[in-house]
């Protein structure tokens, strides 16, 4: 597998996604609605003078950027991979000189590249509404840190789904598992409520659980809510999760393939 092959795969996925431009537009619209609703609710509480861990600017920055970070770190391969394994579609991929993960990665990156130009203008419009309270980091170092932890967050999410989807080698129907993980994971990743607002006695657990490193962490870096030690610990944990999941994926995939009996073959 070399880069040229991957480039071809990527081009293919770009073209396929382009065929669904209209759908992408609707998806991106739907993605923006949730954060806006949540933002308005929290701003209502904020305006009422309730003491909250976040101030108005932090809420606005968090929720305006949430849709973009969610899109860039999202995965949708879990159910697909499980079905490929269960129904034997995997056999067709295995005979080609490209590992399965490359197909999924190309699909992931290709779709995201097409989605971005649709999402950015929508978020831009919302940002215009809240421009007085939107705070972006002025320090270039914050941007650099963000640029490092964003792809890592996408990696953690991607590998988590790879491992979960690979369980289909042993379990007939992992769809339920994947969907439960999607829901609970979104909650623990700060998709609905910033983790900083959770009860303080949970903060230890929230910091070490993996879902923080799929979405919340890059957002926290961008909103500048972290102290240097917290940053350091966060990066350390994120890298550990990335390596750990990669190891887990390699093992699960290899052992699983040996067990794979290719339905219909």
């Amino acid at each position: 597998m070399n880069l040229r092959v991957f480039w071809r795969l990527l081009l293919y996925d770009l073209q396929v996604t382009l065929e669904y431009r209209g759908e992408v537009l609707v998806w991106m619209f739907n993605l923006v609605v949730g954060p806006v609703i949540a933002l308005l609710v929290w701003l209502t509480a904020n305006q009422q003078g309730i003491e909250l861990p976040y101030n108005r600017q932090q809420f606005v920055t968090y929720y305006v950027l949430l849709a973009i970070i969610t899109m860039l770190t999202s995965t949708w391969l879990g159910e697909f991979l499980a079905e490929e394994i269960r129904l034997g579609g995997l056999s067709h991929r295995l005979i080609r000189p490209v590992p399965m993960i490359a197909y999924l990665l190309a699909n992931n990156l290709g779709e995201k590249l097409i989605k971005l130009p649709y999402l950015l203008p929508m978020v831009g419009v919302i940002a215009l509404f809240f421009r007085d309270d939107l705070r972006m980091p002025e320090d270039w170092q914050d941007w650099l840190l963000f640029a490092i932890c964003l792809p890592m967050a996408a990696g953690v999410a991607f590998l988590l789904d790879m491992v979960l989807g690979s369980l289909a080698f042993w379990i007939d129907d992992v769809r339920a598992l994947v969907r439960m993980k999607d829901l609970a994971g979104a909650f623990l990743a700060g998709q609905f409520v910033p983790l900083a607002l959770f009860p303080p006695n949970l903060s230890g657990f929230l910091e070490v659980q993996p879902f923080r490193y799929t979405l919340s962490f890059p957002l926290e870096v961008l909103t500048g809510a972290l102290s240097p030690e917290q940053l350091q610990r966060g990066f350390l944990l994120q890298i550990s999760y990335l390596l750990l999941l990669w190891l887990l994926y390699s093992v699960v995939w290899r052992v699983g393939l040996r067990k794979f009996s290719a339905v219909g073959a």
Partner: protein
Amino acid sequence: MLYYLRVWWRLVLMSLIREAEYRLNFLLSLGEGMLQLIIAVLTFEILYRFTDEVAGWTQGQMLVLLGIYRLVEGLVNMLIAPNQLTVSQLIRRGDLDFLLLRPIASQFLVSTRIIRPHEGVNALIGLGLVLYASPLAGVQWQFGNLVAAIIFMISGILLLYAIWFLSNTALFWTQARNQDQIIPTLFQAARYPVSFFPRMLRIGLTFVIPAAFATTFPSQALFGQITWPMLFIGIALALGMLLLSAGCWVFALRHYTSASS
């Protein structure tokens, strides 16, 4: 009318038979529904950690509203959503031909043909939450309040159906097959009372996306705060929107060219 009821009953029986074939699906949607509800309850738990009241709503009252939302969502997902979400496929593949040929109003068949009984469980869980939270919210179970709440809720559901169906008629002209998801996405706002939103949006969440009629007004009715004019506006609006949706459907059908012809 009786004919339509008889046809509908047949559709219910058919979907029950189909349901019995997919028992795992039942468990899956039950688990998913429970998890969604738990997350929503926890979200409010977080919000009310900082205060006893937001925009005039206590946590108990919010739980009643959430229960009503779940009830409405369950009913919508059982009776309305599965049909609305297949209209685009009917048009794109030309399967609508087969429905148009039947000796019954096409809008009726298109809107009621698929029923998902397992979603009824989610509706029941919502009802359970309402009953559980009602003492916390100080609900007085009075007959008048209950009737008003039910009327509000039904007009909210009918309004949601009408606006959804209306937006779906645009599918005869457009390409995006998932545009039928826009209305239910916006309806998520019904998880909160409309007073949580800026004044400008409240109008939209009352008269366009009927969040207020579906959840806010029914909850308030249970608390004994009924805005009587709204009750009649809701009924009138629902009837008007249903008529409008029927008119637009007939108009759109004239532009239906079927697939591959």
